């Protein structure tokens, strides 16, 4: 009986494995050029680090702050997003600060999703959406982005939803759709027209929209990030999620936020007060100061929101070039800091590898071992039906310093040479 009693609860049945736990372990070896997990190896801006040092020196900032978000931070967030959204945002009722955007996704799903609900997830998807929906007892309903182009250079814009197929996924059980724009892993920046198609369906079926916009500032020339919450009829049914980690290159600060109407945010706040209650104080204070600095220069190209994007665009272009020179056809992202590439053209024969894993898992493991370069397999970001479709793609992260990209270049240039 002892073994039975100490079994896990039903809500986490089957949710124990995780692509990151598997691949971050494998890539932890410092001799491996790590373009896998999405974390910058560039330094955060110096003023961000300075603000944290200043905050930690203030005695009371080492003690608890307001549970739903440190006052100066929610004030700063409301100012920045009022400007972006063109509407009034109440810092106390319309915002919740969470432990990373991850925490916002969790709070939103726990607050608003339950058994009997369906939640539409667009494939490929940031992998936590599926287990979080399942943990809430609901059913994920998948719809893939489909590649639609005959041209030579693939772009993230070539990956689109089929409107009729999307409409078919909505029914009376559909509680929410999860949107991620700019999109991880493809880098797609949904256009206003594409968002309107989704919005129309949300309104027609009275569906909520959970909009993961962590890469909102990272959009490249010719593209504009559009917030679905600003479309008519959408503010009242949308939770928009942001991330300090992605905004300021400080993934290790684990601060994120949910913004939306009071009647939805209040339920997220209830989840928050019953899960971790409050987020760390000095980090929130430092983040609020950083936001004030950049809020004041939002009309200035030196604002970090824009300067980071410019810096990343040249890294994107360099990464694309390296992959092309190695004979690959990368999908050029319009936003975000990931790039996917079809590796089947390299014809690496892995049929002798025993494991029953998809091709891309086997490929990445082989690549780590024999080329000392890591990436993430795309099938980690797919539901069961589409794994076959995406198993020839792998994802590279390019928010890396020059020396890392130099090392990647070295490996890709020597790809066809035999390794020891």
């Amino acid at each position, binding site marked *: 009986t002892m073994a039975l009693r100490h079994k896990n609860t039903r809500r*986490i049945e089957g949710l124990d494995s995780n692509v990151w736990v598997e691949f971050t372990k494998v890539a932890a070896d410092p001799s491996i050029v790590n373009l896998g997990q999405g974390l910058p190896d560039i330094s955060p801006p110096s003023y961000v680090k300075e603000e944290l040092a200043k905050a930690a020196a203030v005695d009371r900032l080492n003690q608890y702050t307001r549970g739903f978000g440190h006052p100066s931070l929610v004030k700063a967030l409301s100012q920045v997003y009022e400007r972006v959204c063109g509407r009034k945002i109440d810092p106390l009722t319309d915002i919740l600060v969470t*432990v990373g955007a*991850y925490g916002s996704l969790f709070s939103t799903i726990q607050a608003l999703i339950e058994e009997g609900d369906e939640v539409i997830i667009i494939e490929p998807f940031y992998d936590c959406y599926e287990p979080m929906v399942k943990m809430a007892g609901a059913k994920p309903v998948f719809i893939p982005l489909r590649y639609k182009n005959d041209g030579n250079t693939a772009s993230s814009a070539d990956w689109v939803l089929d409107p009729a197929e999307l409409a078919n996924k909505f029914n009376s059980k559909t509680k929410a759709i999860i949107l991620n724009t700019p999109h991880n892993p493809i880098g797609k920046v949904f256009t206003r027209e594409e968002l309107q198609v989704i919005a129309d369906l949300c309104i027609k079926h*009275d569906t909520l929209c959970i909009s993961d916009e962590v890469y909102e500032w990272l959009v490249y020339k010719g593209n504009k990030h559009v917030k679905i919450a600003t479309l008519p009829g959408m503010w009242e049914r949308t939770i928009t999620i942001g991330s300090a980690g992605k905004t300021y290159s400080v993934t290790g600060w684990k601060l994120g936020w949910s913004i939306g109407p009071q009647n939805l945010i209040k339920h997220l706040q209830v989840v928050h007060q019953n899960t971790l209650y409050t987020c760390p104080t000095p980090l929130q204070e430092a983040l609020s100061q950083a936001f004030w600095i950049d809020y004041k220069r939002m009309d200035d190209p030196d604002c970090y929101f824009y300067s980071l994007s410019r810096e990343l665009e040249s890294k994107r272009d360099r990464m694309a070039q390296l992959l092309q020179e190695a004979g690959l056809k990368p999908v050029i992202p319009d936003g975000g800091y990931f790039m996917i590439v079809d590796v089947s053209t390299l014809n690496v024969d892995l049929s002798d590898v025993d494991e029953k894993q998809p091709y891309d898992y086997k490929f990445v493991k082989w690549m780590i071992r024999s080329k000392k370069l890591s990436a993430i397999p795309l099938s980690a970001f797919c539901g069961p039906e589409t794994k076959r479709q995406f198993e020839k793609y792998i994802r590279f992260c390019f928010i890396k310093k020059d020396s890392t990209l130099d090392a990647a270049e070295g490996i890709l240039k020597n790809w066809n040479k035999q390794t020891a």
Partner: protein
Amino acid sequence: RTHFLSLSLQAKMSRPVQARRLEGTDKNIWVEFVKLAATYSKVNLGQGFPDFPPPDFLKESFVRALSGENYMLHQYTRAFGHPPLVKILAQFFGKLLGRDLDPMTNVMVTVGAYQALFCCFQALVDKGDEVIIIEPFFDCYEPMVKMAGGTPVFVPLRLKAPKDGKLMSSADWQLDPAELASKFSERTKAIVLNSPNNPLGKVFSREELELIADLCVKHDVLCISDEVYEWLVYDGKEHIRIASLRGMWDRTVTIGSAGKTFSATGWKVGWTVGPNRLLQHLRTVHQNSVYHCATIAQEAVAQGFQRELELYGKPDSYFVQLPKELQQKRDWLVQSLDAVGMKPIIPEGTYFLVADISKFKSDVPDVPDSDEPYDSRFAKWMVKNKGLAAIPLSAFYSGAHKNSYNHFIRFCFAKEEATLKAANDILQKWEREKTSP
């Protein structure tokens, strides 16, 4: 347009938007009392946090971590706990529990002890499970059990009258063994233990812990042991870890807090220690809810523990210094309260003290048929009219039992001497105004 909606859509729109798991979990005493303290209090002895800073060595560790050459400390670390921190925690608690601990599988870092509790309930409590909670209790246990679909089963600590002339002690609050045993059923999944206990300050004795342990073993029940105040024990009392009792390691998750250990509640670093068989499920919840905890604070706490490991048991150890300082503060507050006729219950541990305010009841008349417990109305009146913030004891009771002991309030004494003196002045003035015509 609404009359064109299908029936199923109308049904959907008439349902509440929020999930049923939130039912009965939305009320929270802190939201209200923190706001009142912020608005009215001149002296805040309410919410439990120190008004003195963390020790210098800890602040220095933090600054070193964030300004060092290694800027990668601003990026994600290992999800289940920053390697230097889990290693030192495994070493430290392994020593205390007399056991070899694997940092990777027997320790998990969380966002404060609060999130550790959440992971325990989500991982181990299913719909229909009963969880025994000892009253009075840190208020989050009840909504967390409910959110996990479990049924809280309460068992009270009962106040035994102290010897004549003596002040009450937290040791006078005891479980009735037969009553406790009667709460265990075949549906009992876990018991939540909090020692040292918030709000009373009770430090469970070995005999009391063995009583609980025997029942856990007999009924094959898990123990969630909230030991955040483990270092704050006074008068030479010993904090005993229930996981070290016979038969308990395999069924216990022990929870700790850097916030309480190092007087840095705003850092929100906590941890769980336990057998892999239980921690593996906590890890599953963690990776599907917050995934990573902030890196820099973990690095600093690791260095803090390294220092404490080297100084363990020595006079310079913060774990020796802090309880010494707090015991003095406890004694000052006891004196202040006793002098004006508020009867303190001397806590054996924690930085909380509960006092009987019966002598001051005339200031706040009873309102029969009021939904609100007397002590809550009293505490609100006190902060608004006297500028002194405290928390009503009824906040730490389940709904049905809020009037069990409704003339007690809880004070936090982890405060600078000046704060405690200011509290004393308020109490003195109040008593003078009461007794003068």
